[in-house]
């Protein structure tokens, strides 16, 4: 029987991840500049990546780390599309404020 | 052995009839641009070919087939070997016709052809789309009549709906969007409930599939098969709590469940028929729809509702149907009287004919709900008759509208002087509509009334009064439009053209044909109708007394 401590991930990386995630979430919710929002989303994504790597390491399995590669790839694609959208929005609206993009209001 | 294959033609004639209009609609894509007359001609040709195929079905249908008493005498099954699995969860593809469906398919094809032939020159915008939609709708409606699988039936039911919505919404009158929305939302609201009922009927009864025979086997005991398991009464969970709340014993709880499912079906069908309180979409839709739309709406789309009762709701839940029948009959009776009465006050010709449809379809329902051979035959025949006479009325009103650009009754008067041929045809159709003997209306009307009378004399009596008062509004219409001094508008109206007479001729011929020698129509209808009634009665009788099976003599397989 494996001791419980061996499978539990170390606290420090997880705390770092939680901190980063909270900062990212706060940025998404509080900042209005669309580029900063995008960067905050990246922060949240990377916080999750840290968690994945940490838990993967703790459980002595490679799945989590492999998944991080996928995640990074998706993040890159997302940034590319996201920045393109930002440019397109800036061109059409003349601003990069997320609150100006509210035409879906009911 | 449930299908008579002796008249199979060696190719899947029924599937061909079903999908030919759809293929024809796709074929429109291949035609060159901006040839409006060509599109209509192509559409008429495709629908005409479908009519020929439907005629072959009708002629080939064998009425005298020995197993009519065991099930509705389905023929031309395709695939003939058995249902083809289509979707997971027990959805299959199989089409077949019984005696009622075969005549309805013919009526659908004929009316579509005539509506298309009429549309030449009458519709000027987006002709290609118009023709395509009519053809797609034809497939949808025929599909409703031929589907052997309940889920397939539902798919066609909804498929027939969309083209009609677009026909009203794009080519309709001033209030077309309102009418189109109302039509769709009303019908969908009903059919959503039906979808629940469809799933419930299959899942609760643990039927093998949505196929008619499987459902019948699971729900309604077939003669000779013995009592079916039916739908088990829930012993735990919310269902059990509800049953406990009403304090029902086991048989009553089982009946209550069947009644609930039957009512869900009945609501969907009643909206389509339309029965009394669910009818208000009809005048709006009719008044706004283009002529061809009105013809098909009244001629065949309404029949989907009554057909649903005959084919699905009543045979699957015979005891529920018999329990609920008096209430539905009450609604139908109200509809007969009310429709006729409200029609009397109308100022718009189309809305008058629409309300008259409410009245006439009430009579159809009375005949069907008598659950008795004569009434069933009368009701089913009256479906055909209503399609012919009301279809013809809408065509005639459309012809008048094309000339005068109004349907206001008060704007006309004295038309007989300027349009004698038109007036004569209108009078014939009027006589058919009010059920004068010698025309088709009388045969269906009389049989429906007699059937209702034999089940409950009061039904027949009340319905008879309502039906005969129908003469009042039609004659009022005739008098206001055709008699009296010619109005300014009426004086300059040209009489029927040759093309219009060709369009009307089949309807007039059928009006007299069915009136005088209804046998070719009545024989398949009554054979299947009788067998449905017998099946229902036996189902109920065997559910009550399973021991009494041997009372009837069944044919041993030779």
């Amino acid at each position: 029987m494996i001791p419980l401590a061996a499978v539990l991930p170390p606290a420090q990386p997880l705390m770092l991840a939680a901190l980063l995630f909270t900062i990212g979430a706060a940025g998404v919710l509080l900042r209005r500049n669309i580029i900063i929002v995008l960067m905050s989303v990246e922060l949240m994504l990377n916080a999750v990546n840290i968690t994945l790597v940490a838990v993967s390491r703790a459980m002595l399995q490679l799945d989590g780390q492999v998944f991080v590669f996928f995640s990074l790839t998706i993040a890159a694609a997302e940034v590319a599309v996201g920045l393109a959208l930002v440019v397109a929005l800036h061109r059409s609206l003349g601003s990069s404020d997320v609150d100006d993009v509210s035409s879906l209001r009911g | 052995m449930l299908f008579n294959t002796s008249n199979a033609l060696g190719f899947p004639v029924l599937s061909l009839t079903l999908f030919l209009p759809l293929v024809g609609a796709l074929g429109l894509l291949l035609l060159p641009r901006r040839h409006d007359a060509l599109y209509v001609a192509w559409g008429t040709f495709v629908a005409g070919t479908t009519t020929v195929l439907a005629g072959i079905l009708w002629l080939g249908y064998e009425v005298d087939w020995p197993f009519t008493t065991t099930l509705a005498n389905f023929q031309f099954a395709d695939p003939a070997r058995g249902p083809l699995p289509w979707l997971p969860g027990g959805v299959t593809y199989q089409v077949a016709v019984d005696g009622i469906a075969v005549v309805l398919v013919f009526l659908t094809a004929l009316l579509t052809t005539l509506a298309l032939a009429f549309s030449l020159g009458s519709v000027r915008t987006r002709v290609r789309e118009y023709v395509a939609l009519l053809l797609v709708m034809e497939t949808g409606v025929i599909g409703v009549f031929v589907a052997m699988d309940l889920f397939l039936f539902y798919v066609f039911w909804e498929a027939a709906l969309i083209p009609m919505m677009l026909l009203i919404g794009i080519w309709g009158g001033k209030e077309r969007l309102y009418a189109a929305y109302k039509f769709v939302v009303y019908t969908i609201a009903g059919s959503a409930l039906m979808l629940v009922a469809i799933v419930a009927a299959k899942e609760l009864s643990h039927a093998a599939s949505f196929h008619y025979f499987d459902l019948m086997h699971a729900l309604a005991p077939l003669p000779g098969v013995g009592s079916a398991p039916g739908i088990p009464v829930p012993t735990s969970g919310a269902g059990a709590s509800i049953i406990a709340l009403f304090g029902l014993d086991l048989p009553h709880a089982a009946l209550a469940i069947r009644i609930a499912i039957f009512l869900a079906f009945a609501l969907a069908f009643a909206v389509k028929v339309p029965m009394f309180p669910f009818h208000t979409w009809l005048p709006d839709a009719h008044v706004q729809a283009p002529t061809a739309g009105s013809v098909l709406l009244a001629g065949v789309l309404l029949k989907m509702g009554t057909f649903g009762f005959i084919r699905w709701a009543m045979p699957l839940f015979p005891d529920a149907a018999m329990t609920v029948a008096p209430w539905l009959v009450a609604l139908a009776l109200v509809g007969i009287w009310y429709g006729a009465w409200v029609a009397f006050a109308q100022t718009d010709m189309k809305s008058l004919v629409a309300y008259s449809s409410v009245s006439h379809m009430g009579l159809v329902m009375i005949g069907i709900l008598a659950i008795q051979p004569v009434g069933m035959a009368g009701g089913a025949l009256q479906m055909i008759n209503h399609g012919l006479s009301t279809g013809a009325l809408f065509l005639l009103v459309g012809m008048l509208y094309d000339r005068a650009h109004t349907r206001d009754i008060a704007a006309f008067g004295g038309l007989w002087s300027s349009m004698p041929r038109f007036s004569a045809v209108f009078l014939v159709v009027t006589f058919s509509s009010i059920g004068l003997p010698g025309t088709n209306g009388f045969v269906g009307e009389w049989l429906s009334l007699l059937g209702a009378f034999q089940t409950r004399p009061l039904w027949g009596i009340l319905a008879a009064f309502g039906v005969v008062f129908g003469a009042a509004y039609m004659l009022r219409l005739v008098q206001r439009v055709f008699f009296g001094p010619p109005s300014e508008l009426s004086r300059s109206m040209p009489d029927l053209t040759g093309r219009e007479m060709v369009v009307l001729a089949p309807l007039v011929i059928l009006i007299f044909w069915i009136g005088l020698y209804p046998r070719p129509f009545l024989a398949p209808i009554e054979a299947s109708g009788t067998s449905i009634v017998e099946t229902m009665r036996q189902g109920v009788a065997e559910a009550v007394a399973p021991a009494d099976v041997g009372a009837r003599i069944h044919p041993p397989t030779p």
Partner: protein
Amino acid sequence: MSIETLLPWVPALPLIGFVTLVFFGRRLGGRWSGIVATVAMGAAFAVAAWLALGSALLRPGWSPPRVMGIDEKHVVPADYLDHPQEAVYHSTLWTWMTVAPQYDLTVVTRPVRAGEPVPADAVTTIRLPQARITHDLELFATSHRMFTPEQAIGRIARLDLLPIGPDAPLNGDRLLAETTLLPDAERAIPAAGLPERPLGYVVDVALQLDALSLLMILIVTGVGFLIHLYSIGYMAHDADRPRYFAYLNLFAFSMLTLVLGANFLVLFVGWELVGACSYLLIGFWHKDPANASAGRKAFIVNRIGDVAFLIAMMLIFTTFGSLAFADVLPQAADPLVLSGGVATLIAALLLVGATGKSAQIPLYVWLPDAMAGPTPVSALIHAATMVTAGIYMMARAHVIFDHAPSVLVAVAVVGAVTAFGAALIALVQSDIKRVLAYSTVSQLGYMFLGVGAGAYASGVFHLMTHAFFKALLFLGAGSLMHAMEHGFHHGKGSGHGAASSSEDHDDDAFPPGPPPALDGIPPEQDLRHMGGLLRKAPVTGWTFVVGGLALAGVFPLAGFWSKDEILHHVIGRAGEGGAIWLALFALGLVTAGLTAFYTGRLLLLALFGAPRSSGAAHAADSPRTMTAPLVVLAALSIVGGLPWLSGPLAEALDPVLRVAGHVATNVAGSAHAAESGPSALTLALIASAVALGGLALAWAMYRPGTPLVDPARLATAMGGAYRTLRGKFYVDELYAWGLVRPFTRIADFLWHRVDDGVVDAAVNAVGRGAVALGQGSRRWQTGYVRTYGLGIVIGAAALAAWLLWLV
């Protein structure tokens, strides 16, 4: 040709005429249309006459070679078979409606060892649907397939298709042989295959000819032919003659279908079609909305009666399982089949139907308005034929009425009251056609009285004589109107012509051209503008006098005999005890006096005295196509009622109309009734005195020159009564106020208030509710990304909290 094959031609010929005129009428033109229609009608009459001579149905004392229409399948009470003279020719054209046809067939119920006779208890009769039988028979015929004894269970015992004897193929099991199986297979299944008549709901398009229908078709085709002939002249200047003659032929076809139908449903076809034709013909001059309205009124009032008939037919079918006269009437004669209650119900419903078609209270209102049609139409439809349909129908179904004595009394009361009331109204009308119309209603009331007294033959007899003299009167009135119109035009043309004789001198007192219409009555048919027409139009005038006297019941004209016979039977019933019959007799007698009075008034005002307008002054007799039918009808009105005709007629009708012996206590319609009342001679004298009294009174009031009693002063003296009669008891107004106006108001109410206001409003309210729900929930959608983000975060946090709680 046999009678059965010839029979369908009687209605078919007018139908052919109709179809020809519908398709080729305009090409033929007015003149040829008239000729085609008349020839069709004449041919129909010829066929009818041929049938009359060939069938000898109307020849009394003749006994038919075979009894038709009754076979051993039907339960025929012995009483019904007491009358071997019952002779009916059937001609079934095709099966009209069939639903669930079934056959009673004899079958084996359990295995039987071959070579042994089938025990009686192994044979039974079951009811099988047609399809099963057809299938089995085909199986036998095509495949020579044999049934083993086991398989024979439930199979049809039709073994004449099986090879019998040692040649029969054997495969293990022995076959059942015919002789051993079923000795009476022959009876169960005739050689043709199936029994002739399946059970279940089956109606044939079938005609039948017996003495009653034969008499009716002779009247319809005969009078109809004369009216067609007359129409050629009368309608000569109408542009729409093809349509007119087409309708006329269609009407003749419908009426012939009505009287020849072999079952209630075919009768009903004619019944409704004559109503429809009447609708079309009344509204023939449809440019005048009043005419079209009159047509519509006729149709709808008729239809109200038709509902009752329809319900009666449903009840008949439910009771007897058939609608064919040959099935129903013999059964109805059996009190075990037809109980009194059901009989009363059926008879009462039939009575309501008959009041609609035969214009009796309360449904008589359509007939006077029906005079809006061309006058020959009034003669044909509204005097001679269509309105008699009710009497014909009651006579046809008299077996049912015999079982419902209370309904018979109701029939008599309706008839007598209608006869009296209509005669009162006729007293004061100025429109010549309206006088005749109310007189028709009144005379139909007489026929009802006769039928109600159980004297069906007398009712039918009066129907016949009435057809003669009323057709004559209507055609004569038309001819007088024609003469008046001629006069108006003539007067216009030669207003200042040289006046030679004294009365021409008088004529110049009138302004040329027609005077303005009074009370909306066209001047040419207004009695107040007539006068002295006898001298101007002698043929029309004298025949009119003959018709009038026949109507008044003057000896020895037709009306005298038939009316006398009805009164005779009524007083016969009174003799049995029953004050009501005495009252009815008194009413009938008074009506006879009134009839004589208004007829006298009509004749005196129209034909005698001085002309009262330029039309009357310059009138000229009608062309010969119009006067010839008048002469023929006048001759018939003279001789039509003579006893040497009526005696054999009653004898010939007796087998059809005789009251069955065991119900004779209910109905004393037989000759015995005469013995209990005053003698025939006394009654004839009384009736003659009454008629002459009425005529004398009319003479006193309307004679040329100074009247002994001034009608104008009398009218003033009896102001209220006069106005009520003049206003036709205000029944039309009552119906308009009490029935028509509520009907239209309710229609408007239902449409606007109920349909738009409640039903549709509820639907739209549901729609609006859905929209409001959407409107409310749209507030959740702010459009700000961070709001959605916050939602996600809160949701995720909640989820996490739940998961933690779970752990």
